[in-house]
């Protein structure tokens, strides 16, 4: 059994992605913490935005990748795509949890509360619950192929649900400050924008880097299990012969 060619590509390029992530995050943190002015209203507190917003963006990006990968898996049934989905789900869950956590830390000084059932907080919480459900299901199926298939079905359903969840809680209540960056334009001072963009790119690269490592790990683990199984099988066969 040869190593999958995707893994070979990943091994070749992962250093560049990791290095890029480190560089972007270092530059972004410098710009965010030292090189940018404090916010007119929020003061120094605003600096947590440079962590919070990129984390949230990246978590959503991760979920999109998960849904795309799941459709791809159901279509082509390539096990490596399933390894990628598994890795991306775990990372997205971590990033979502961190986005919620940093949001809470930001919410305390600005809204004077750790938690409120605001639209975006609620929809991110639901997203986290869906991802955790996905990860739990994956530990509860005995058959590898079934595990991948059920996971893919769940991920696709959850992805279809995301916009509906978003709109329903948006109508339900809204307190969160409107997004600063949207397709309609940017409503943020340029001094604050540069570190945000750099941090967003850095965070996505970090996510990709960790994804590459984790996918490899899951893939190699599965390969190892398969080899172990074969060795065990040979052992039993040879014992039966003798």
């Amino acid at each position, binding site marked *: 059994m040869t190593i999958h060619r995707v893994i070979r590509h990943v091994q070749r390029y992962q250093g560049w992605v990791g290095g890029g992530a480190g560089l972007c995050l270092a530059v972004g943190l410098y710009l965010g913490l030292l090189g940018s002015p404090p916010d007119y209203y929020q003061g120094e507190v605003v600096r947590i935005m440079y962590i919070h917003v990129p984390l949230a963006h990246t978590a959503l990006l991760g979920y999109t990748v998960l849904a795309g990968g799941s459709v791809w898996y*159901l279509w082509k049934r390539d096990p490596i795509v399933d390894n990628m989905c598994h890795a991306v789900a775990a990372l997205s869950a971590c990033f979502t949890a961190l986005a919620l956590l940093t949001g809470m830390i930001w919410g305390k000084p600005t809204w004077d509360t750790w938690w409120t059932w605001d639209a975006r907080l609620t929809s991110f919480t*639901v997203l986290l*619950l*869906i991802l955790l*459900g996905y990860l*739990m*299901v994956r530990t*509860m*199926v*005995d058959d590898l192929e*079934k595990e991948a*298939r*059920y996971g*893919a*079905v*769940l991920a*696709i*359903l*959850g992805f*279809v*649900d995301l916009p*509906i*969840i978003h*709109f*329903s*809680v948006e*109508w*339900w209540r809204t307190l969160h400050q409107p997004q600063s960056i949207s397709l309609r334009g940017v409503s943020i001072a340029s001094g604050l924008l540069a570190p945000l963009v750099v941090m967003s790119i850095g965070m996505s690269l970090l996510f990709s880097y960790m994804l590459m490592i984790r996918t490899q790990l899951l893939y190699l683990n599965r390969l190892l299990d398969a080899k172990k199984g074969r060795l065990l099988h040979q052992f039993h066969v040879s014992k039966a012969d003798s």
Partner: protein
Amino acid sequence: MAPFRTIRWMVWKDLVIELRSRETIASMVFFALIVILIFSFSFSMDQQAAHDVLAGMIWVAFAFTGMIGLGRSFSAELQNDCLEALQMAPVSRGALYLGKVAANFAFMFVVELLLFPMFVILFNVDIVEDLSLLLVVFFLATAGLAAVGTLFSALTVHIRAREVMLPILLLPMVVPVMIAAVEATKGALNGDPVSFYRPWLELLAIFDVVFTIVSFWMFDFVMDA
């Protein structure tokens, strides 16, 4: 039309089983009564307070009783390997799915119709006379629960800890249904004009259509042996 015959047979099969055993609906109703009991001593309510939270209590009870019915829907098929028979049956999977959705919807809807008067009587609330719009709300929200719930019931039946996993997976997915159902029920109970909660009805209808289609498509992957 073969698919319609399959759907009819599936519904007939589930209804006959239910009429003979009376397991699902009876357990759903008893469970809901216990939920009502717990509500009654969790909150000490006067009539006004009960009126304000009635919609929320109704949907908590409906969602949890729905879980019981949905969970049984496929785990009952495990006896005598009926599930494998369904998987091998030379009929379209989509028709199997729609048949199960229809049966689950029927069970849940009947239970809701039984429970709603109990809520009104036991919490002693005043409600408007015209309840036709409330029926529309119940219909749309229950259809949404049944559409996603049937798929998840079929999925969790194959995994360990299925009784726990069904609500864990299903409830986050149906958050929009819950929000819309509670808001629309509030409106309908207050006798507000429809235009007040029309967006919620539309949201429920969109959810129903989208998730019936997606689940219909996904059911094939869940039912593969």
